[in-house]
């Protein structure tokens, strides 16, 4: 894991997949905690699993939708103490802005947040009589994602609700690193059942701790 993330440097933006614990690349994040970087920008739906990283002083900003879902009692304090800037986006906007960056699109035109504080400071674009918020694309230097199966071409297969942000983050990042419960031979993942085509993934690492239904990590931030 440490080797997989060796090119991460200070002040980079890291998009981290997962929703709660499902599809969360926990081993890559643990390796990042050990790396001792500074001024990282983290893009992830939740903030709960980054408390150790925040406490180590590695994070300058978190871009997310639901920072305190299932968070520990101390997370808010950690964020405040570390001077971490919190940038909130509606969850669908977060997802779509990552997809836009990965799709070569200039931004997202959405009604979500119109008439609320989420429209503040945004350009409003009128299309055929309706106003939309223009939210710019959201890209990352690295994406860390988690898969059930991966092959050395980077094809990924997920299980259940582990898909979540892993596809759009893999798309949005210059370099995507996937940890997988099982690294399989090329050809094992069916062409009809590939959740993230390998074109979006640059490196694949085998998890040392497999995640199964009785995994002790389950429930960590429920």
């Amino acid at each position, binding site marked *: 894991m440490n080797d997989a993330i060796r090119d991460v440097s200070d002040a980079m933006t890291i998009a981290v997949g997962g929703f709660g614990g499902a599809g969360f690349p926990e081993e890559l994040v643990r390796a990042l905690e050990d790396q001792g970087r500074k001024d990282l920008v983290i893009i992830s739906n939740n903030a709960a699993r980054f408390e150790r990283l925040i406490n180590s002083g590695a994070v300058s900003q978190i871009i997310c939708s639901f920072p305190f879902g299932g968070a520990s009692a101390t997370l808010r304090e950690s964020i405040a103490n570390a001077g971490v800037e919190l940038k909130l986006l509606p969850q669908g906007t977060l997802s779509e802005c990552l997809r836009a960056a990965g799709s070569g699109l200039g931004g997202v035109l959405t009604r*979500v*947040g119109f008439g609320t504080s989420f429209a503040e400071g945004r350009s409003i674009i009128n299309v055929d009589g309706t106003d939309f918020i223009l939210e710019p694309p959201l890209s990352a230097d690295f994406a860390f994602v988690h898969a059930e199966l991966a092959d050395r071409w980077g094809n990924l297969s997920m299980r259940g609700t582990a898909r*979540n942000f892993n596809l759009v983050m893999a798309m949005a990042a210059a370099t995507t690193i996937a940890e997988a419960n099982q690294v399989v031979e090329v050809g094992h993942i069916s062409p009809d059942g590939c959740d993230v085509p390998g074109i979006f993934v640059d490196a694949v690492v085998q998890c040392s701790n497999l*995640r199964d239904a009785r995994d002790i990590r389950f*429930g960590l931030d429920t």
Partner: protein
Amino acid sequence: MAWTRNEIAARIAADIPKGWVVNIGVGMPTLVPGFIPDDREVLFQSENGILGMVALGPKESPDPELIDAGKRPIAVRPGGSFFESSLSFSMIRGGHIDLGIVGALQISRAGDIANWRTDEKMIGGIGGAADVCSGVKNLWVAMLHVTDTGELKLLDRCSYPLTAAAVVDRVYSDLAVLERSDDQWQVVSLAPGVSLAQASGATGFPIKGPD
């Protein structure tokens, strides 16, 4: 006698037609699926990427890769499907979800909803609440009519930051079921023993009695 949380949920469940696709928010709304009769097919969507979710049965082991948007362990029913986040929000924003059921801190006469933070404190974050409230075909709110300390939650204008503007279709509270049309609110029904005067007194805008 005001409705209990379970009675509110049962009341909502009774109003969901067969075949609807429903997104369920955190809190009281999570009680609703338990009151849908087995012979009425209703599909529950969760924005983290599942259509057809069901609560885990007593003998089912939780799977860390199978959770709902409230991060509770779930299962999938036959005919359900999993998908990634951007497609999930295409469903939500694109008007493909028949109904969203959410909680609220405040509701305004114009149908604005505030349910993600007070003036002082963010609860969990905005999450998918703004997308759900803005995107679903029908938005029903499950809530207690007033706060624990007796402050009104149904107000002429919300004082807390909005989640979405002019979106609430119905409110199911412990005192009444209310339906909105523009800025007119109609009482659909009152909890047993609750008078229109009581309900009106607990509401910060005019409500019209049942016909």
